């Protein structure tokens, strides 16, 4: 067996695949955060909790209602997205006239409530979720499980579809205009508050979709969201929230870098993204794709 830069290729490509999977989740989650932030000027701290609820939603549908993975993939984002719409109407909408920090504090409180409730009900040891597409294929240089390939493809398709919707369609142009100048857009007769509500619901739905995708890979666990969201925050700081494509590329890129770190210097794999964040802040404070304000 030949070696590549001192590392067996099986291990290298295996970790690259894992990194790509992590990157898929970083991209989906930071995309949702960026979409919500762009429209509502709120950093959704509950994003991790909503991702966790997506995974639990899939597990609960299977366990209590017998709805298989494919049904959950469609239903869970709709249900959790609707819950997001409710949260926006009940709580977030009352804070828009205040400083942005209050939105962060409110959603942090919501995240604690969700995580606490699920931990109380299901403990924190994690629940298994059966892989809907077992098996895989040997690509010669590595073994590719079908499900992991599926996750990467879904993530790329959803990310690109969101990018297309926001950058290339009429609805997206309304969204971008409302981000720039909500008062003017309202003067044209467009219902901006409703757009904000739907945007939050959409962002939350994206988080829930990521949760459903994650359920068969990671065990379904109440704390799966809070650990991930802090890394996603770092990803968002690195990429800058100004650009949709920027969030997608940064998400995948950092996932791959994290995977490579696991091969070459495993001790740093937990912290590499934070180190990159610190370096990027020193060199380019606005983020790689951000515009300085």
């Amino acid at each position, binding site marked *: 067996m030949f070696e590549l830069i001192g590392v067996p290729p099986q291990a290298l490509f295996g970790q690259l695949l894992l990194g790509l999977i992590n990157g898929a989740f970083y991209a989906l989650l930071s995309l949702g955060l960026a979409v919500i932030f762009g429209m509502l000027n709120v950093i959704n701290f509950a994003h991790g909790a909503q991702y966790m609820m997506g995974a639990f939603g899939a597990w609960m549908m299977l366990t209590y209602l017998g709805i298989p993975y494919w049904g959950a993939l469609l239903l869970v984002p709709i249900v959790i997205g609707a819950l997001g719409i409710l949260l926006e109407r009940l709580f977030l909408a009352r804070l828009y006239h205040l400083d942005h920090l209050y939105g962060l504090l409110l959603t942090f409180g919501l995240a604690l409530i969700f995580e*606490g409730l699920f931990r109380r009900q299901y403990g924190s040891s994690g629940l298994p979720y059966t892989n809907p597409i077992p098996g895989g294929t040997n690509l010669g240089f590595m073994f590719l499980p079908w499900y992991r390939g599926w996750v990467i493809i879904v993530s790329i398709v959803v990310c690109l579809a969101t990018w297309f919707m926001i950058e290339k369609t009429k609805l997206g142009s309304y969204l971008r205009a409302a981000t720039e100048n909500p008062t003017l857009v309202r003067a044209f007769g467009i219902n901006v508050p409703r757009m904000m509500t739907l945007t939050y619901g959409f962002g939350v739905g994206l988080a829930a979709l990521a949760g459903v995708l994650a359920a068969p890979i990671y065990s379904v666990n109440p704390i799966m969201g809070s650990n991930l969201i802090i890394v996603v925050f770092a990803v968002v700081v690195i990429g800058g929230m100004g650009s949709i494509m920027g969030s997608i590329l940064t998400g995948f890129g950092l996932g791959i870098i994290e995977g490579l770190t696991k091969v070459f210097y495993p001790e740093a794999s937990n912290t590499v993204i934070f180190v990159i964040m610190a370096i990027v802040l020193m060199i380019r404070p606005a983020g790689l794709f951000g515009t300085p304000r």
Partner: protein
Amino acid sequence: MKNYDMPIFAALIAILLVAPLAIYPVFLMKVLCFALFALAFNLLIGYVGLLSFGHAMFFGFAAYVSAYTVKAWGWPTEIGILAGTGVAAVLGLIAGLIAIRRQGIYFAMVTLALAQMVFFFCLQAKFTGGEDGIQAVPRRPVLGFIDITSDIHFYYLVLAIFAAGFLIIYRTIHSPFGQVLKAIRENEPRAISLGYHVDRYKLLAFVLSATLAGLAGATKAIVFQLASLTDVTWQMSGEVVLMTLVGGMGTVFGPIAGAAVIITMQNYLAGFGEWVLVIQGVIFVITVLLFRRGIVGEIAALATRLTRGRGEAGHIAGNPATTS
């Protein structure tokens, strides 16, 4: 307007001096440590308008340093606490240099991420004892003659540390330096246009806040004879935010009231396990939606309403965070 801060502080200290007669001193020491932690945090959010979501890194890391130097290297208690505080200051300088490059919510996210990095470092480093933490830290006599093995003796020492920390923060807020900080909070571009090196002021305030948070953590480690991962988690960073928010951001006494309320609540709810998390979340949501001024802020606002016309509102910062 007459300033009642010092009389109130004197009354508070007088009450705290006799409090151990009625209340368990270890509980009081815990409240004092967290009150100092929250006061340090409030210096940033209340007076510079910077929301740090990673203050646990200073609190928890200082706790590790003081516990380790006292236990493993046999350093005297006071040197151990100072070492923890000093390391927190250095950490504050490094984290501050990185974090002040962004404002508003980005600042919150950056500090949170840096704190998570410190958490992973503590999880993996050998000297922290991993999941076990550093246990059974000895309580050696302070300065060689003040015996602190008795909780009641140690309590008065902790009270002195707390009072010193409070006075340092109070002096800072009411100094010309503090005025500049408030100007930055109110209108950063204007402060820049007036020729102030805003970043230097922010950095200095950040380092001071980190140092005092470290002092609180280092003291807590000796009180409980324990330094553990709990103190460096993001939940701990969230707790200090909650204490300050509940007590009143940008008020002189708010963080103390908030720490007392939250620690008391945790004490009573200790048997309810995960419900504590849910209840803390509910308090967050209710406070943000209905009582943004916090306990002390609401009381001060009420007092102002009652004595309308006779003076401006004491130390309420109308909106503690207007930078973004």
